[in-house]
């Protein structure tokens, strides 16, 4: 059997080829110099990926071989889509991709012993909450479309929620690893419903409170939903109590309903979701145009570069926020149902690999960390794709690795680094028969 790293290298080649072909398609569409520019871009991309691969070969030789190529695939795909929207945006995105890989390498370098994270879990939790709060801080906070998601410090602008999600998952994984036993044992049945012990449930209420707080202060239903869903996923995996999930969901729905009716911005988003045709040129414009763009895609799509993003002859947006929120609609428009299913399949494969890591991991923290990171990643993809396809209200969450946005790309590469760290240890331990027996005994 080939080694994991050789499999990774083999998997990277088709990714680079896809990027090359994608750029070639966009170039030819724009009747620009086809030449060898797309080849150069493809070569650059492959070179950066190979460098990362070599680094992984040295530092994490046993880590999961498919995660990095799958994420590189999404990045490549995102780069082509963004390039097709706006050349300068794609250049930014490429820079952030490189920056993301640098942070990826640094994470692996400094957190090789990721148990460190457990020791600082309250600090990490505090940082996570502070990051969430930052967009409301005077001077640095920024409001976009009614939601407070951005922070601007000098020339540096970023979306702290992207980083916050990692902090919160790390904290929850650590906390739940420690408390899962008491949460299970201390649970009692009241009126046929298994309730968690109140004493240990305080911090859980804090997470619920934080999600509600996000609704109120950040005013973003999407990130709130994403955080809370990740929390419930972890709670379920840690305790095995489905009733906790049901209670949690009920609490979220009640809270979200309450705030959705009281906070105008959140309320509008829900109204638009329920009836976008009420204001087709106003608040319903984005979701309607997103759906109309998908309707034009059909099975096979119109082809790279063929979709309409602005109204011809003007700069008026036909598909608002095509490079971020509604990039999935553009994918359906240009690559059709098949292309979109391909993208969803890649997310599903990433989720599968992530959960596989969690299954292989020996200790509780590793298991919960891998589960949490994978869940938050998959749920983020669900929240934005679901928003664009009107499964849930449309909110301003990015499509991981595909949407334009530095914070998103960099944060998700840090997330990937953590997953690979867990994976490397899990697979090394699984390869040692003695360690394996011990690990099984522990779970």
């Amino acid at each position, binding site marked *: 059997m080939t080694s994991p790293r050789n499999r990774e290298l083999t998997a990277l080649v088709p990714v680079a080829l896809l990027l090359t072909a994608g750029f070639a398609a966009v170039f030819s569409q724009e009747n620009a110099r086809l030449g060898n520019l797309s080849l150069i871009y493809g070569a650059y991309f492959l070179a950066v990926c190979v460098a990362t691969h070599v680094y992984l070969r040295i530092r994490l030789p046993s880590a999961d071989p498919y995660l990095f190529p799958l994420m590189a695939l999404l990045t490549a795909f995102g780069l082509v889509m963004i390039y097709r929207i706006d050349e300068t945006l794609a250049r930014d995105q490429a820079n952030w991709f490189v920056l993301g890989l640098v942070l990826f390498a640094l994470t692996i370098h400094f957190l090789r012993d990721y148990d460190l994270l457990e020791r600082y879990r309250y600090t990490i939790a505090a940082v996570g909450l502070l990051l969430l709060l930052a967009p409301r801080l005077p001077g640095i906070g920024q409001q976009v479309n009614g939601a407070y998601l951005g922070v601007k410090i000098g020339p540096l602008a970023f979306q702290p929620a992207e980083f916050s999600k990692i902090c919160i998952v790390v904290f929850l994984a650590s906390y739940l690893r420690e408390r899962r036993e008491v949460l299970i044992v201390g649970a009692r049945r009241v009126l046929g419903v298994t309730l968690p012990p109140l004493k240990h449930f305080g911090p859980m209420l804090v997470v619920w409170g934080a999600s509600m707080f996000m609704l109120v202060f950040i005013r973003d239903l999407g990130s709130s939903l994403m955080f809370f869903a990740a929390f419930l996923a972890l709670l379920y995996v840690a305790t095995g109590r489905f009733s906790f999930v049901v209670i949690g969901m009920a609490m979220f729905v009640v809270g979200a309903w309450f705030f959705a009716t009281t906070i105008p911005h959140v309320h509008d988003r829900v109204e638009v979701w329920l009836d976008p045709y009420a204001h*087709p040129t106003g608040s*319903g414009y984005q979701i309607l145009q997103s759906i109309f763009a998908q*309707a*034009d895609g059909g099975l096979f799509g119109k082809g790279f570069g063929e979709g309409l993003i602005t109204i011809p002859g003007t700069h008026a947006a036909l598909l608002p926020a095509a490079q971020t929120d509604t990039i999935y609609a553009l994918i*359906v428009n240009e690559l059709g149902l098949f292309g979109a299913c391909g993208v969803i399949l890649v997310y599903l494969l990433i989720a599968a690999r992530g959960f596989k890591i*969690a299954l292989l991991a020996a200790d509780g923290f590793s298991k919960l960390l891998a589960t949490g990171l994978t*869940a938050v990643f998959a749920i983020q993809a*669900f929240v934005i794709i*679901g928003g664009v*396809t009107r499964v849930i209200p449309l909110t301003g969450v990015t499509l991981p690795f595909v949407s334009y946005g530095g914070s998103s790309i960099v944060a998700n590469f840090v997330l990937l680094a953590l997953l690979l760290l867990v994976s490397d240890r899990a697979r090394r331990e699984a390869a040692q028969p003695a360690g394996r027996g011990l690990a099984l005994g522990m779970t």
Partner: protein
Amino acid sequence: MNRQIVKLFAFIVVLFGVLVGFTSYWSVFDAKALREKNANKRPLLEQQQIRRGRILATDGTVIAKSVAKGHGASLRFVRRYPEGALYGHPIGYSFVREGDSEFEQFHNDQLVGRESEFGSILDEITGRNREGNDVVTNLDPTAQRVALSDLEEQGFGAVVAIEPSTGEVKVMASNKPYDPNRVPHELNQLNRNEIETPLLDRATQGLYPPGSTFKVVTAAAGLESGTITPETTIVAPGTIIDEGQPLNNDFTEDFGPIALDTALTNSVNTWFGQLGQKIGQDALFETMEKFGFNATPPIDLPEDQVYESGVYGENHRPLHRNDPVDLARVAIGQERLLATPLQIAMVAAAIANGGRLMKPQIWNRVVDPDGRVVDRLDPSEYSQPVSGQTAEELTTAMEGVVNEGTGTNAAISGVPVAGKTGTAETPGNAACGGGSEENQAWFMGFAPADEPKIAIAASIECTTQFGNDVAAPIFRDVAETILNGE
């Protein structure tokens, strides 16, 4: 914990499955409905970037074409109508902001060259730019011009001319006309003009009392149902009492016992009123429906822009055979009976074609940018309202109308003409200004009677004159033009 992790993964799979489901719904299953939403400007914006095909008259005259504006990414095409108002109806218009109508709307897919999904993939691979196909119509420019200028002389109304054997529509003219080139600037004014209603295609949307032209339908039902033969005589007094109200002949003339020929030639109301009662509502409605009444005419125009003919009830819908109607008055084309000029032309065409009604069609063929004919009209039968024998008997009776009866102005020297006049009184019609002397004047017929080449209906609103005075001459001019052009 592993069991829970597997379950969590299963849940994520379900969530993503929902995403695939919704994406499929929007992009494939509901796509057609979404493309037709008003708020969706994509189809129009995209079409604007395609050179829409031309619309041509039968002799190659360009009725509509697209011209390029801007270049590069802002390249778009704008519609031009070189013949101006002549073909405003039935061709309609197509603009991004104002939308499209009539023929332009119905044949949109051919004009923008929408092909199969597979075809467009091939185009993408070969890098061919999508280009629309030309649609060649059956419209005869000379006859169309004659029809419109005659109409403009006589008043508001419409003319429809159909080739009986194929259903090809040679003329479809409506007065008041409009110039589609003006639509982008003046759509609101055109819409607000409630007196001239230039945007109303009177040929397909003008619902008028058909008057005595409908007696041909009654006669057809009588012969076809076996209620009468051409020899059957019915006593036709000056007046009969129908539903408690007198039903009179013109000048309450008493004709005594007469047969079909005499009754049709002199358009005897009391004769046809009694015939209608004898036929019964079922048989009369059956024949009407076979001629196309109570249904949207099967023409290549958008369904919402072609009105049904029939006995209009209070809910603005045609009544059916079980609804109560005053049968004697329906039989002479009165009561609440309303018909479009297209419908009356279809009646004439069916009789001219030996009783077989061909679907009227404006288009003839679709030609791709390389000049290949990609699709061609295949004449098809809509129904057979009457037998060949009945058609012959009706033709004989209708020849009498033109030779010695109420329709002498339709006569063409050297050509036998079969036809029927109609003059429906429309007193107090608000559209005519509410005067008491106004009539709806009609002529419908075909020529040559022995070997019909063209069937025509002409109708004039709000005239104080009779069908023979204002409508028959239009029939004659248009028929002569078409027959001479052969």
